[in-house]
């Protein structure tokens, strides 16, 4: 079989989290009752005019700078014409000939295998509304339209066709999402629709210069789905080429249940959007000074933060990578370290206990019931020997379930570690008496038997006995025998 290579370009739409919409003062809040965040402007009444939201422009420029783009001093809005009921004016105000930003790149991969994916252009545009075909579970005759989302600012980020595999597409998306979250310009939440992605994919024989015929794939609702859809497409296209079928340029939709793509429309049926400069808006002028001021508001980006974690906290590449892969997580980690300065220990607790527990209930870090301060307090209790490591895990579970402070839990449940040697000695005596067999075996040289005895002591104290002390006292006592 001949060798093929894959060429992928991604078009990502992210909602900017401004308070108000791109061209009117309506709220952008998600989940409000239908058509409550609307006005004459965003419902396309006769005679209304758009006014650009400055904050949206700021967020857009900030994103563009973080993605290493050129931000020209002048960009223009354009009308993209097509009819659809969720688009009140039947044109979308977007950008076309002179976009807000262009010629940038995004670095993906790890230090050992870094790669740049080009960002061809970034457009600032308005979102459309939403069509509803049912109310709750009730099907309705006809369709309803909700304009709440209509006019929410969107950033369209178009990559160059530099992505070579579905897996790389996945990495590109997670990296991009992470950066935009670091900038605090978008939630990038695919479930809530604040990030959407269409993918252009084609295959060609290795060594061929010209691109293969591409398919545009839409309708994926997670990064994994994007990866799967692309994998499906690559296989489909190679199969087609192998059997000498002609691949047609078309738009295909991903069917999540059947895990396959199917044709939506061919190139011939594609819209002619008849772009032309939006005459209701003057050109967007971004003066150098303004751009530089915006650049100053860019905080540390994920990659820089990862490097710093490695240096400052002596973390491994892997740990630093995981911790900085989400701004909220990295913030959490640093807050814990601030009050409990043992980065290694904090790393373990955050990555194993916290993330593990969050995963089981499908929650994000920022929704964690245990605050960074509370986790630091827990670790301090352990450090001071007030509770054992094992008890600490029990306390953490209780904190996670109830949101209570560790001190309170330790007191209420009398979980303070037993460090009184006399008390431990007393229990050791009891255990020795009750387990003559184990004592005998130890005497015969079976070192392992001590484990059983330690376990018995811990059981009698509900795990509260200090394990080091138990070990020490047991050994001394057995030697005496």
């Amino acid at each position, binding site marked *: 079989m001949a060798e093929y290579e894959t060429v992928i370009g991604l078009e990502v739409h992210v909602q900017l989290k401004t308070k108000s919409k791109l061209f009117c003062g309506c709220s952008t809040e998600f989940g409000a009752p239908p058509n409550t965040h609307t006005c004459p402007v965003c419902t396309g009444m006769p005679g209304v005019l758009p006014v650009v939201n400055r904050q949206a422009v700021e967020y857009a420029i900030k994103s563009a700078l973080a993605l290493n783009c050129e931000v020209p001093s002048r960009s223009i809005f354009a009308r993209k*014409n097509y009819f659809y009921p969720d688009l009140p004016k039947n044109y979308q105000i977007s950008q076309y000939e002179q976009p807000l930003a262009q010629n940038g790149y995004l670095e993906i991969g790890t230090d050992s295998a870094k790669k740049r994916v080009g960002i061809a252009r970034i457009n600032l545009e308005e979102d459309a509304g939403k069509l509803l075909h049912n109310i709750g579970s009730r099907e309705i005759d006809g369709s309803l339209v909700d304009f709440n989302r209509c006019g929410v600012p969107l950033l369209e980020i178009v990559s160059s066709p530099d992505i070579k595999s579905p897996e790389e597409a996945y990495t590109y998306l997670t990296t991009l999402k992470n950066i935009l979250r670091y900038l605090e310009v978008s939630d990038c939440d695919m479930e809530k629709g604040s990030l959407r992605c269409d993918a252009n994919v084609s295959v060609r024989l290795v060594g061929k210069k010209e691109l293969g015929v591409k398919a545009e794939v839409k309708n994926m609702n997670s990064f994994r789905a994007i990866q799967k859809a692309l994998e499906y497409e690559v296989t489909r296209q190679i199969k087609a080429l192998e059997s000498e079928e002609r691949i047609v340029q078309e738009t295909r939709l991903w069917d999540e249940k059947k895990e396959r793509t199917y044709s939506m429309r061919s190139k011939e049926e594609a819209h002619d959007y008849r772009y*032309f400069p939006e005459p209701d*808006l003057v050109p967007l002028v971004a003066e150098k000074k303004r751009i530089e001021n915006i650049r100053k508001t860019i905080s540390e980006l994920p990659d820089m933060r990862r490097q710093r974690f490695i240096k400052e906290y002596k973390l491994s590449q892997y740990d630093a990578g995981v911790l900085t892969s989400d701004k909220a997580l990295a913030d959490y980690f640093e807050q814990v370290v601030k009050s409990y300065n043992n980065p290694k220990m904090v790393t373990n607790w955050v990555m194993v206990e916290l993330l593990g527990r969050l995963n089981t209930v499908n929650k994000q870090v920022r929704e964690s019931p245990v605050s960074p301060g509370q986790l630091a307090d827990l670790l301090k209790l352990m450090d001071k020997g007030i509770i054992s490591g094992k008890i600490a895990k029990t306390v953490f579970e209780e904190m996670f379930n109830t949101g209570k402070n560790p001190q309170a839990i330790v007191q209420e449940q009398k979980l303070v570690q037993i460090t009184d040697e006399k008390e431990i000695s007393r229990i050791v005596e009891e255990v020795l008496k009750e387990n003559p067999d184990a004592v005998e075996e130890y005497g015969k040289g079976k070192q392992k038997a001590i484990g059983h005895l330690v376990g018995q002591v811990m059981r009698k104290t509900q795990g509260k006995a200090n394990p080091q002390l138990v070990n020490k006292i047991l050994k001394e006592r057995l030697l005496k025998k």
Partner: protein
Amino acid sequence: MELCELTGNELLKKMEKKEISSEEIVRSVYNRINQVENKLHSFVTLTEEEASLQARNIDGNMRKGESRGLLAGIPVAIKDNMCIKNVKTTCSSHILENFISPYEATVVKKLRDAGAVFIGKTNMDEFAMGSSTENSYFGITRNPWDLDYIPGGSSGGSATAVASDETILAIGSDTGGSIRQPAACCGVVGLKPTYGRVSRYGLVAFASSLDQIGPFGKDVEDVALLMNVISGYDENDSTSVNVEVPDFTKSLIENVKGAKIGIPREYFVEGLDGEVERAVKEAIELLEKLGAKTLQISLPHTEYGVAVYYLIAPSEASANLARYDGVRYGYRSPETENLLEEYEKTRGEGFGAEVKRRIMLGTYALSSGYYDAYYLKAQKVRTLIKKDFDEAFQKVDVIVTPTAPTTAFKIGEKVDDPLQMYLSDIFTISANLAGIPGISLPCGFSKKGLPIGLQLLAKPFDEEVLLRIAYTYEKNTDWHKRKPAL
């Protein structure tokens, strides 16, 4: 003499002296409407009840000695493509026949704040597309000087209402001559301000880069008064320009000594009606006599104006009018089977022939493969036309031309010949393309007794020079004092 025959400024003086009330003025205007409206049909909607209430309120406030606006108690008619809250805005179209605006245009708000009383909404060519007001879904408007003739358009209702004393003042919109040409046809004064001088927020868009709202009045003084009220930057209109608004009534000085007046040779060519040419030349001679200096100039790209206009305006219109789809408001064709059919039937039945023609023209001009040859090329020539004016205004203060190549034509004469109809705006279109201000004022009558309009053009934001020269001309003539016999 009836109150409705007076000018706004005359009425304001009488009110100040407490000789008359707003209620009396409004009653006089409605009496006149009751007498002549069935012959003329200037209005699409009359708002007599609201107007009377407004007038009584203003009279009450004035009795209490409360501060009064610049237009307190004066009737103003609004072209039916500007939104008055809770009043129908139809654009003389079937598709908006029952559309009641949920918001108010900036211009309307300014007028309301100044105490203007809204008489009604005036008839127009559907979506302001036309030069005769024959393209109205609600029927034609007739020229008060001769009922067999068109009043001009698209603001034909506003011009007619002012000319026939059905209102004192009126507001129109001008995309290619839609204020100036009907003003000329009806023998009143109409001004198209500089693009960006008056907010377009709430003006139903025809061609966004050309549309501009402006005043109609019985004389230059009234037009200046209205300009004081409606001008100014508006944060709701990004294309409105944040420049200082002068007191336009201060430009009403009877003096043209030393003013440099340009006469563009491209405007005095074949196709210009002999009577119109004579009247305009006499007007120029009068201005010279009053001390102005005239100068032959050239605007070499004039001949491309109409072609450029009929690419740019329809292109913008094709997008601006896309929102009338029956989904949210307006006419929706009943009993359609699917979305596409709903769009097609709603728009097919809802729009008139001329509107559909222009939507198709614009859609074509913007289509992939044609964009560069049509839309883009037109934009380039538009820049050249603008440059012509920039250069001319280095030499002259104003440019004088006829407003239209002929006086009003007969009803029905050009309805089947769109190209002939388009040529009615041949002298007015360039000002919209260049964004400059222009005024039309009466400068004579044809043998048939139809008014002739004189157009003055000035550089951007120099409406003051237009008003001063127009005022001086007016003070030395009495064309504007003639009234049609109805």
